[in-house]
């Protein structure tokens, strides 16, 4: 088995990178793959609480790199989704304990044990970012439709190109109603500005916060718009490259249609 390492980055923090990583990882496992999600944010671990696995941590990624345990010992098995594992970040260590050489060493082992390894990169473009991308085969960039996130995404895309990675974009937290009102960049705007391939569009969804409150996988909730979007992204990564990308739509009201007819709105 030769697994694929996918790094999830964004540049700017708080755009939904952790949600994207955990949801895509879970969805890939639901598709029948053996998946390891790796939290690369040393000192600020988050994936464990989002995934509801915080009480079961024994070893972490730093322990694996430093040889204190095997990959299998650090990988926490998710009890709700078969073949889904989390390798948590360490919470106490200095973030400099992880080096690119160390990551490259365990990348080999990870590839031999899993079909997909999803690395959650920390925000920023410093050491943690370097560690996350050093062994990556593919890269995903998460971005929200606001000026700061798009600008940081552009910077990260440049850095990924420089490492011969051809990143794909996820536009997160789209609010179609606000796009229609001219208050928010559309995904077309974002794509035009960044000129990069798209892998998925994720609408704003209140269920994301609720599922992280309880530590339950978003992709198991069929009534979650974001969960459905992440499952489709996972299918595209799993070989269904031609699966059409659904546009989040704004359900137009009667009033809206009327005002459109009379030229009050664009």
């Amino acid at each position: 088995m030769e697994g694929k390492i996918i790094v999830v980055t964004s540049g700017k923090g708080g755009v939904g990178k952790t949600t994207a990583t955990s949801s895509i990882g879970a969805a890939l496992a639901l598709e029948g793959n053996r998946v390891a999600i790796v939290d690369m944010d040393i000192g600020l671990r988050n994936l464990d609480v989002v995934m509801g696995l915080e009480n079961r941590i024994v070893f972490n990624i730093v322990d694996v790199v430093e040889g204190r345990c095997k990959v299998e010992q650090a990988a926490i098995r998710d009890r709700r989704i078969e073949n889904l594992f989390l390798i948590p970040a360490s919470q106490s260590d200095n973030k400099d304990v992880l080096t690119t050489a160390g990551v490259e060493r365990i990348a080999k082992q990870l590839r031999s044990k899993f079909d997909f390894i999803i690395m959650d990169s920390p925000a920023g473009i410093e050491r943690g970012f370097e560690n996350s991308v050093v062994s990556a085969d593919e890269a995903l960039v998460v971005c929200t439709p606001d000026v700061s996130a798009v600008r940081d995404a552009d910077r990260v895309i440049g850095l990924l190109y420089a490492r011969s990675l051809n990143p794909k974009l996820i536009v997160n937290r789209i609010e179609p109603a606000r796009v229609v009102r001219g208050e928010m960049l559309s995904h077309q705007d974002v794509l035009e500005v960044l000129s990069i391939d798209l892998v998925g569009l994720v609408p704003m969804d209140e269920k994301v916060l609720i599922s992280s409150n309880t530590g339950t996988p978003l992709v198991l909730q069929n009534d979650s718009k974001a969960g459905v979007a992440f499952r489709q992204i996972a299918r595209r990564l799993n070989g269904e490259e031609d699966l059409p990308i659904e546009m989040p739509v704004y359900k137009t009201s009667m009033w809206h249609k009327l005002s459109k007819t009379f030229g009050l709105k664009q």
Partner: protein
Amino acid sequence: MLSGLFKRFTTKKNSRDDAKKRLQFSLIYDKLEVNDTTLTDLQQDIVDVISKYFEIDKDSLELKVKRDDNVSALVFNTPILHVKRKKV
């Protein structure tokens, strides 16, 4: 209610377009800024070419990236001291 309706007729303020335009410029500018040596090299090349025809004040010239509402442009400013005569 009525003033709201009136507003709809008159104002066409669209922050989405602003965001897009500002981003397009800042990304271009970011990239130009990164390559400071490129700008210096370019300046030298321009000076060399102009010096073939004019005598210019090399101390007070400037090369800038200018951003307007719709275009971003390279602006080169230089005082011309003399026109060089063509040698026969």
